[in-house]
């Protein structure tokens, strides 16, 4: 199903590669009209890396740098935490969510290293449904089509979110041995991640994991999803640092909802992290908490190797207008 053999290949800017994934790898053609495709942002140019050396040889030799626009001023010492398993850290600001998902799936399926990805907001409001989500059950499709809101089906399980510049994304991709004594199943992984975030939110807002959601009290501010392979797993979270009230109107009340939701509407169920913690503080504290278990190594976008010979085709994709229309028609009939 997936080509999972990494190979040494010429460097490609990952932005170009993510585009190539979406448009040219061999997979069944989509129905006629193209999906609503937001324009790709123009990332600041990075110096081309023409080195043919393997990734790990490049690392640890440069001072950590951050994407321009990041408001973090923290530098991670290179020699700290010797003896802890290595984890590569990538930070983005405003990376389109589809590209983030493509990067994540590629790293899950083709990398043998541990990764943490922090994406500070995404460019355009986008609806993201889980792998088995049924659009007609989850979305007010007419409004979604009228307002041309993009809809992505992601490769991980879980529910539906609408993400935008107010969303902060944090992702962990790990080998199954990376966390000692952790069984690679959904609930243990969720328990591990909640203990990490407990350090971030210590003493703040009655934080805890409640039926797979991150909450302050009984208000959700973080949604989780996972994918588990034979030897690795990914756990990613979308945090509602802020949200647009109007955007929530695109989402229906899901059929499968946690008991603690108690049939509350979206706006009564969720809350904003901005009412509890500054944005940069959250991201810095998350990195600090991760550092207690891993030796973090900052990685720049273009350092990720991609394979042009054996293409990896990520499965996260936009749903087409035709698919959304058909789903709406099927529901009515």
């Amino acid at each position, binding site marked *: *199903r997936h080509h999972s053999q990494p190979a040494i290949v010429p460097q490609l800017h990952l932005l170009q590669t993510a585009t190539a994934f979406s448009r040219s790898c061999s997979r069944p053609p989509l129905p006629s009209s193209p999906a609503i495709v937001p324009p790709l942002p123009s990332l600041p140019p990075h110096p081309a890396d023409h080195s043919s050396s393997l990734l790990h040889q490049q690392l640890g030799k440069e001072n950590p740098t951050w994407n321009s626009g990041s408001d973090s001023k923290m530098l991670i010492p290179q020699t700290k935490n010797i003896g802890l398993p290595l984890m590569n850290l990538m930070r983005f600001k405003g990376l389109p969510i589809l590209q983030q998902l493509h990067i994540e799936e590629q790293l899950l399926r083709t990398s043998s290293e541990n990764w943490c990805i922090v994406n500070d907001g995404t460019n355009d409001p986008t609806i993201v449904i*889980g*792998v088995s989500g049924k659009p007609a059950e989850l979305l007010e499709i007419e409004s979604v089509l009228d307002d041309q809101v993009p809809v992505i089906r992601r490769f991980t*399980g*879980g529910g539906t979110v609408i993400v935008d510049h107010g969303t902060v994304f944090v992702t962990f991709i790990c080998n199954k041995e990376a966390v000692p004594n952790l*069984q690679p*199943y*959904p609930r243990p992984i969720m328990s591990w991640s909640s203990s990490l975030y407990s350090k971030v939110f210590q003493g703040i807002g009655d934080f805890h994991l409640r039926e797979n959601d991150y909450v302050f009290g009984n208000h959700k501010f973080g949604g989780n*999803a996972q994918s*588990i392979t034979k030897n690795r797993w990914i756990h990613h979270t979308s945090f509602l640092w802020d949200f647009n009230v109007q955007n929530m109107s695109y989402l229906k009340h899901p059929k499968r909802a946690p008991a603690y939701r108690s049939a509350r509407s979206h706006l009564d169920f969720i809350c904003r992290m901005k009412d509890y913690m500054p944005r940069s503080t959250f991201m810095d504290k998350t990195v600090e908490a991760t550092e207690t278990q891993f030796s973090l190594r900052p990685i720049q976008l273009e350092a990720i190797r991609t394979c042009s010979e054996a293409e990896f085709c990520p499965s996260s994709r936009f749903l087409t207008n035709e698919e959304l229309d058909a789903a709406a028609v099927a529901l009515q009939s």
Partner: protein
Amino acid sequence: MALRMWASTTANALKISCATTKASVFSLPRCFSTVLDGLKYAESHEWVKHEGPVATIGITDHAQDHLGEVVFVELPEPGGSVSKGKGFGAVESVKATSDVNSPISGEIVEVNSKLTETPGLINSSPYEGGWMIKVKPGSPSELESLMGPKEYTKFCEEEDASH
């Protein structure tokens, strides 16, 4: 140790799953998921039942218990092929998709279409109604390298004990 062996044998004979429901009458330790005789098992917690020219494959009671309520099953098409140790499908539970790997190589001759409408069969009947694919084995010797019931039971106990 004797009590554990008795409990395990009883569970096997009665074919009960002692870790699936809180309402279970039998308060056996959680690690004693059902393991059936006559099947072979992979370390990634799939089972194989080889009957004549066809091998049936699914995930074990241990796996379904650890995964939680299965809400969606992704299956391949008949006519495709599977490779030993490689993923052929996935199950979704508790906000996670989990790959299901084939214990053997071969050609897929049938898939369990009931799982589309009733994915919970994997939880309620992992060895019978929850079967996932039927395969014509490409290399019958691959079955030899899989674990038998006793070996798999011990494997599960050790895995649970070490975490």
